[in-house]
């Protein structure tokens, strides 16, 4: 971990050498993710509620999902681009180093500009918390959830990257396993058919990030144990996908040069 943080600090310093690029990138990421929420907001502006959730409640839900995703993309952007490593054989370089490949991969690119997407989600979350008149404990709780959410989403990306050790081409799988569920994470799960709800609560557990705890916290059913779900899901998914990564790594065959 010490090595990881040292590499991370070096990456951050190099990124901040280009201050103008950093500012523009951060602002643009924030604006682009905000435009994504505009579609949801425009629908709620007209129809007032979706599945019994009003605009503030949906903002809170979306804010938790966006900030979690933004946070992971700051630290794990290379995992999301792992297909390139497999197709070009770049992963061979990581295997020749005397450090764990995943730590090397994660420390290769610290995409600080993605902090804009995180901030957009975070601001959305604050707007939602204020709009629903959240008690103090819910504010504190929601500040902690993106940390767990970032691990859940990171695990999905890592599971897809691990699949690449067998199938090489994984960009399309990423669309299926991460992008589509992330779109669903912005809405209350009760609007989805049973099969999708099951998928988003089990194999692709994005509902664990915001929906399950908020369902109880906002008085829409569920159980107080739901508050533990993001953290349990994070621990479980990280454990499983780390094993999958190590298993896949042993099956890696270089694409050659």
């Amino acid at each position, binding site marked *: 971990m010490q090595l990881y943080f040292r590499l991370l600090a070096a990456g951050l310093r190099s990124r901040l050498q280009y201050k103008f690029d950093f500012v*523009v*990138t951060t602002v*643009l990421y924030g604006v*682009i993710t905000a*435009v*994504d929420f*505009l*579609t949801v907001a*425009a*629908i709620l*502006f*007209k*129809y007032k*509620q*979706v*599945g019994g959730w009003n605009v503030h409640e949906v903002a809170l839900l979306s804010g938790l999902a966006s900030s979690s995703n933004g946070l992971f993309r700051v630290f794990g952007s290379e995992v999301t681009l792992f297909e390139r490593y497999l197709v070009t054989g770049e992963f061979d370089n990581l295997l020749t180093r005397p450090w764990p490949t995943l730590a090397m991969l994660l420390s290769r690119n610290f995409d600080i500009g993605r902090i804009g997407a995180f901030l957009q989600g975070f601001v959305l979350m604050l707007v939602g918390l204020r709009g629903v008149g959240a008690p103090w404990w819910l504010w504190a709780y929601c500040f902690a959830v993106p940390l767990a959410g970032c691990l859940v989403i990171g695990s999905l990306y890592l599971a897809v990257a691990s699949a690449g050790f067998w199938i090489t*081409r994984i*960009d*399309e*799988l990423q*669309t*299926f396993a991460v*992008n*589509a569920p992330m*779109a*669903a994470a912005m*809405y209350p799960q009760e*609007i*989805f*058919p049973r099969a*999708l709800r099951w998928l988003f609560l089990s194999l692709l557990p994005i509902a664990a990030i915001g929906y399950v705890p908020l369902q109880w916290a906002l008085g829409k059913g569920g159980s107080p144990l739901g508050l533990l779900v993001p953290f349990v899901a994070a621990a479980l998914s990280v454990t499983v996908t780390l094993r999958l990564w190590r298993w896949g790594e042993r099956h890696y065959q270089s694409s050659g040069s």
Partner: protein
Amino acid sequence: MRNVAYKWSHMLNNVASAIFGFIYIALWQAVAPATSATDPYTRSTMVSMMVLAQVFAWVTTFLPIGLGIQNGIRSGAIALEMARPIPYFPMVLARETGNLAYQALYRSLPLALLFAATVGLPRPASAGHLLLAVPSLLLGAYMGMTLVYTVGISALWTTEIRWAHWTYYSVSTLLSGGWIPPDILPGWLGRVAPYLPFSGQLFYPIRIYLGAAGWRELLLQAAWAAAATLWCHWLTGRALRRVVVQGG
């Protein structure tokens, strides 16, 4: 041909695309009124629109980043492409048309079959509307190509087009009418959006197919296509003067 090698990978993406479709279908089923005398976007209409949006988007909206122009700029290959006796803009369009034909066959068609087997594929309002929907869809594809061409060729000024692409993609998602009808957007945006070129990508082809639009909308698409052609030719002329081959 280069796409055919990855057809199974693309089939997986089709499943993802269908899931996106089911998500938006579920969303509209939750909010849109079952029937309404005043709201044209009832539940069944919106389900039809979402299905058609997923099917049509693969030929009008989901195009490769910058049509790959930026790669030629980075590698220097653009100098050779521009030196050819064929004008650059039509050449890129011709190349992309092949890609769109592939997407129609391996993306749109399987998706249409998948939706037909699940939520049902909407039928055209009439034979006349189906006949009108074909040129409307082709104009939508053309409009998509010219918009993405603009993003791609901008690499001659900026080298990096990632931002231009994501900005285009986000704006197009909001305004093309595939996921939300542009005329229900709030305030002035809702009044202006139906007349922007993005509406021609999905909103009008879908509305014409469903019988809710006709010649007037098709003419608007044709006018935007003509304007986009002039714009792309002018931009290409300017770009020719900017070509700097990178590397050595």
